[in-house]
């Protein structure tokens, strides 16, 4: 389609990125497997990029765990996984009382997070392991035990997140690629706590730019680790610069609008299986290289 000029989006008062926001200078100071969480406005392309990213990372030799924190199916499609009904079963979780007498949940005795990943994840193409939060079943949240089990695994990954590169344990070798639900509520308040790098996926549209800026501000308040942006569905040379200027985040990757991705969505197949030479795959390949250099794959 013909190029369309982009109007300067309206930014809320107080949301203008400042040159000393510190967001652009945040860099990870540790090695270890890549651990990233994709966040952004609904429809920005998180799942599409995350699926390609996870499989390309696996092709590079990493042991990859893909986490889908959205009760709606998303990452499974972009990974090319036929089974989209998996989750952690209720029997994997037990209730207990903590020291203050509060009822809490944890993985059942004898089941650690590494074993739970092996048991309850789905093996995807290229060997990526997909762990899903699980389907939302109804108003009363009948699947809450499954969600507690998922949270227990996030807890374990969080504890291991800041470990030194020579740390040992069943989770130390996993590269983790997380796909978080759209919007601003979840990314920095628990669901992305396993990540060393938060990747904010932003389209060059006013609404998406504003969401990106809000996420950047939340990241700042939450003292989140390395937070950067990916400019997605770009159509013009200036789009990535626009994303950087409007969000205040360093843009570490630019993914062009790709008709092949749209066709993959229509068919419900993974882009890598439909057209592995597409512009989007090439862009995500560069993204994997960029992040692997910052967070070396062992």
């Amino acid at each position, binding site marked *: 389609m013909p190029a369309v000029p982009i109007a300067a989006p309206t930014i809320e008062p107080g949301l203008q990125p400042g040159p000393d926001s510190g967001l652009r200078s945040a860099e990870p100071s540790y090695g270890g497997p890549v651990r990233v969480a994709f966040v952004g406005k609904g429809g920005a392309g998180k799942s599409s990029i995350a699926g390609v990213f996870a499989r390309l990372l696996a092709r590079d030799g990493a042991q990859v765990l893909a986490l889908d924190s959205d009760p709606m199916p998303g990452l499974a499609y972009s990974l090319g996984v036929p089974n989209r009904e998996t989750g952690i079963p209720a029997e994997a979780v037990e209730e207990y009382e903590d020291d203050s007498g509060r009822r809490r949940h944890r993985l059942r005795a004898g089941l650690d997070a590494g074993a739970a990943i092996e048991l309850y994840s789905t093996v995807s193409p290229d060997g990526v392991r997909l762990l899903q939060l699980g389907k939302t079943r109804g108003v009363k949240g009948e699947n809450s035990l499954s969600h507690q089990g998922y949270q227990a695994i996030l807890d374990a990954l969080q504890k291991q997140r800041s470990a030194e590169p020579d740390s040992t344990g069943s989770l130390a070798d996993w590269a983790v690629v997380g796909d978080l639900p759209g919007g601003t509520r979840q990314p920095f308040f628990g669901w992305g706590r396993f990540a060393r790098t938060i990747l904010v996926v932003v389209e060059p549209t006013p609404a998406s730019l504003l969401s990106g800026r809000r996420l950047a501000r939340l990241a700042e308040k939450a003292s989140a680790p390395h937070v950067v942006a990916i400019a997605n569905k770009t159509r013009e040379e200036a789009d990535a610069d626009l994303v950087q200027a409007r969000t205040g985040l360093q843009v570490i990757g630019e993914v062009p609008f790709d008709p092949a991705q749209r066709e993959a*969505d229509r068919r419900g197949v993974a882009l890598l299986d439909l057209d592995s030479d597409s512009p989007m795959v090439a862009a995500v390949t560069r993204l994997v290289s960029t992040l692997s250099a910052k967070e070396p794959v062992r």
Partner: protein
Amino acid sequence: MLGQLDSADGAVVADFEAGLGTVIRMGDRPVDVVVLVTEPTVKSLEVASRAADLVRDHKLGRLVVTANRVRDDADVTRVQAAFPDVDVVMVPDEPAIVAAERRGEAPLDAAPDSPGVRALVGLADRLLPN
């Protein structure tokens, strides 16, 4: 606040966040109409089917399904297969709407006569009480 918006005189149009979270939390406070917006992709249609089940099971309101970015007959067939018992409002894939979005303009202002906007006007008519 949403619970206090019951008004006989005015209309309230709420744009919920993606996914089913808000729909699930509506609980026993139903609305007049739930407009379910989907796209003719396998993933979107699966999500919409699950959402439709929730809306029906919990009697949250009259269900209206809208398929956005419909390009061709194959898309129409795909959507109708997912919702065989529903008269779906088809909104064509519309470059004018994409362009308006990039400029931060309302489609109704930017391209009021485009097929996509005309389809949305038809949707609005359908939401009004008979």
